[in-house]
């Protein structure tokens, strides 16, 4: 049969999965029950069985009982859990013409607030959505919340059914009011419905059959709107993402098993495994069964491969091509929908599952809690059940991931509290750097040359030990002012001291770096390494950079300690120059905040990029409450304590 205009002939294709959502009692199950019946898809005897159930309860015929399979659902008249119904829209049109239609799985999701976890379970498994809004009640809390969640889950193909039109006398004016209100809400969450359809499920009006009572409506029926939805976007065009699910050694083969979540691969390709950063070539694609052996595979396939060389990989590793690797990060910025019974709070620890990786995370910050019905912000000390929030999570190690917008399958995760899944998250890493290039060592054939001039000798010559005072804080907090004054005073006291700041570092060493998150991270990495070298040379190094990311500062600390190699000595000292954002913005010594607020400077710390304050700074100088002289004295006192002059001049 030839495909009809706007209708896809889909023999052998996957069915399109449609979730019906909306406020409790707005008629989702009724609509589905009637739709199935009108497409002639009810099994034999079902109508009679439903009629008998209704008669037993002394109630009129209830279409919802077709899908409300649990007795508790029928007794209470609500849907508790999501149901899956297979359906084809193949039918005969009014003109007697056969319409090919296509195959669907309809997921009938509950509207009751208490069962939001089941609604999310259904919606997350769907490709498109049908939101049902009662013509009498109009737009309600769950109508909005469900619309918001569809948008959050990446579902953009949506139709709206305004139900129970028979109860408002098929009134066009009432329909227009409800349609306008809901369409404008959906616009704020980025959804433009393909159709808004007045229906009466009880009478079958505008489901499959065009309503005669609502001749004023000329748009598509429900089934026409569903048939008009586009097909699925395969993730085969994205870069390769193959999460390692398991490693098998049932026989002489060592098989890496997993499902390709995006992209494709070929025998002979070099794979990069993250976060371990190891590479190996694909030696073969393994399979069992009548299908011939293949030399390539693509997104969606569950495959097995062997590697050459047989490097150690394990479940949780994420394979990619080395030309397009995932991001590596210990800080995860995400929008999370929270289904936990207990509120989510800063400091709470959860287990995060992303593809096949599982890592413990801690909630570092709650940036925003979103009221899903008016999209306003709520107090942010905790995230209540069923709310949506923007969070910063911190993992102990590095996690391989993508932004959801770039690659959905590796850009989303589930949070677990103990055994229980309690939330889902969509990754958004805008403003956060990739931590991979900083960790990868390109020169590996290095052998340390034993130094003949030791640190002890240098300390004796200089009269003090070498080390790093790492000043961090917002722009305008007073880092440079403080560091310049401290450098001067220490020099006067006979210290071998040198100040690293943006002026002397960016002029030469880092002239090739800009101000993107990645470049800023590389800038700080180099400063950390230079500071470590100077410290090893016996100098007391002061550095004055915003250095907003905790991971970057940790790396600078590690650089100092790895070169000098004595873990018991504290050579790296983090000095938090503290002042709140409002004060810094008021000071604005270089006029940068003003420009950032005007949108002239992208990724500006404190305005459009995060500042992660130290968790346990070695020294905190609160410039909001100290004069410059008092602040300088505090630092000098600290230096005298930790870098005392021995037998000095």
């Amino acid at each position: 049969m030839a495909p009809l205009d706007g209708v896809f002939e889909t023999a052998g294709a996957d069915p399109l999965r449609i979730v019906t959502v909306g406020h409790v009692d707005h008629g989702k199950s009724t609509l589905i029950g009637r739709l199935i019946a009108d497409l002639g898809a009810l099994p034999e005897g079902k109508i009679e069985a439903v009629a008998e159930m209704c008669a037993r309860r002394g109630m009129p015929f209830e279409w919802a009982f077709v899908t409300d399979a649990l007795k508790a659902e029928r007794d209470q008249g609500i849907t508790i859990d999501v149901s899956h119904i297979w359906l084809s829209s193949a039918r005969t049109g009014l003109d007697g013409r056969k319409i090919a239609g296509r195959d669907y799985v309809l997921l009938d999701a509950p509207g009751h607030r208490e069962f939001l976890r089941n609604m999310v379970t259904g919606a997350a498994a769907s490709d498109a959505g049908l939101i049902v809004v009662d013509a009498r009640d109009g737009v309600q809390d769950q109508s909005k919340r469900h619309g918001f969640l569809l948008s959050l889950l990446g579902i953009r193909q949506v139709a709206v059914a305004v139900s129970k039109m028979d109860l408002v006398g098929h009134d066009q004016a009432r329909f227009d009011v409800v349609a306008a209100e809901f369409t404008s809400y959906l616009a704020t969450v980025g959804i433009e419905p393909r159709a808004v359809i007045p229906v009466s499920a009880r009478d079958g009006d505008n489901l499959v059959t065009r309503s005669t009572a609502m001749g004023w409506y000329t748009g598509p029926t429900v089934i026409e709107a569903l048939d008009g939805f586009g097909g699925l976007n395969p993730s085969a065009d994205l870069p390769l993402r193959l999460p390692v699910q398991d490693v098998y050694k049932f026989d002489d083969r060592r098989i890496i098993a997993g499902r390709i979540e995006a992209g494709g691969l070929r025998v002979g390709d070099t794979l990069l495994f993250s976060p371990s950063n190891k590479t190996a070539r694909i030696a073969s694609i393994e399979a069992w069964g009548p299908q011939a052996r293949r030399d390539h595979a693509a997104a969606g396939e569950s495959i097995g491969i062997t590697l050459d060389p047989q490097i150690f990989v394990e479940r949780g590793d994420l394979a990619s091509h080395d030309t397009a690797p995932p991001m590596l990060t210990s800080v995860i910025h995400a929008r999370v929908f929270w289904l936990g019974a207990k509120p989510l709070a800063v400091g709470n620890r959860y287990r995060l599952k992303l593809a096949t990786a599982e890592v413990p995370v801690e909630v570092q910050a709650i940036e925003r809690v979103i009221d899903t019905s008016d999209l306003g912000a709520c107090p942010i000390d905790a995230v209540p059940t069923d709310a949506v929030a923007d969070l910063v999570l911190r993992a102990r190690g590095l996690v391989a991931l993508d932004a959801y917008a770039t690659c959905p399958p590796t850009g989303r995760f589930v949070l677990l509290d103990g055994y229980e899944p309690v939330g889902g998250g969509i990754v958004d890493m805008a403003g956060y750097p990739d931590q991979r290039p900083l960790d990868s060592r390109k020169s590996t054939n290095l052998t340390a040359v034993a130094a003949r001039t030791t640190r002890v000798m240098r300390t004796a010559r200089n009269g003090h030990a070498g080390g790093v005072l790492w000043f961090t804080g917002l722009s305008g907090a007073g880092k440079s002012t403080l560091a310049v004054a401290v450098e001067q005073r220490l020099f006067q006291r006979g210290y071998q001291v040198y100040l690293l700041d943006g002026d002397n570092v960016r002029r030469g060493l880092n002239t090739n770096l800009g101000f993107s998150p990645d470049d800023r991270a590389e800038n700080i990495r180099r400063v950390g390494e230079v500071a470590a070298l100077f410290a090893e040379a016996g100098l007391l190094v002061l550095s004055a950079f915003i250095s907003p990311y905790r991971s970057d500062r940790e790396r600078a600390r590690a650089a100092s300690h790895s070169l000098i190699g004595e873990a018991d000595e504290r050579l790296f000292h983090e000095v938090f120059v503290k002042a709140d954002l409002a004060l810094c913005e008021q000071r604005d010594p270089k006029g940068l905040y003003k420009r950032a607020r005007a949108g002239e400077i992208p990724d500006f710390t404190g305005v459009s990029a995060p500042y992660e304050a130290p968790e346990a700074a070695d020294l905190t100088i609160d410039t909001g409450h100290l004069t410059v002289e008092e602040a300088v004295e505090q630092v000098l006192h600290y230096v005298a304590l930790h870098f005392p002059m021995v037998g000095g001049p």
Partner: protein
Amino acid sequence: MDHLDTLEARSLHILREAFHKLDKLGMLWSFGKDSQVVLWLVRKAFFGHVPFPVIHIDTSFEPPEMLAFRDRIAAEWRLDLIVGRNEAALVGGMNHTIGRITCCTALKTQALNQTVTAGGFTGIIAGIRRDEEGTRAKERVFSPRAADGHYDSKHQPPEFWDQYMTDFPPGTHVRVHPLLHWTELDVWRYIKREEIPVVDLYFARNGRRYRSLGCAPCTGTVASEASTIDEIIAELIATRVPERAGRKQDQEAEDAFERLRAEGHM
């Protein structure tokens, strides 16, 4: 990838999750069409191996053709077969004339729960599908069960993005459903494509065939002329007779099957 490839890939993913996550895994094998497909998928997932025991819950009322088929496949595919029976109930003369639901509960549900406990299983793979029946339409892929096998349909965990609840408190177990997203038609199309052996009872003789297999006294045939897989597929495309129409225990009460499942039935 066509639709069968998609279904298969998802099932392999589920089976591999279960095998990695669950210490003591077993698979229910009734040698019907669905469990034959699951077993085939297991061999695909694990590259020709079946790395856990298969469990037959033996009610002693299965048609003899099925037991012969069981023994042939178990030998050919080198299966580690466990046969679970509620011996006490069988010795006590349990049968369907006492009451179909009572009989099902004793010989299937209780036998299964006893086998799970005796074998220390933490995960049981079962080949149920959502399109079979209304309560199964609401099932999770990983469905937690209480220590006594009880299934609480009102408090199922959220399950999305193929991230399953794979960790459970001690004493509980989980049912794993790798075929949940398949339809009866998908199963037959896959059997045809992969040339999976199935028991002859599915093919029509004298105008009747079994659409769903179970104990002889409680499983009826449907009118059918379908004597090949192609004819079965053609019949399923056209029919409106539900798959479990021949299963008499489902028709005992409005929520007969729901109550059976709450006690731990598949």
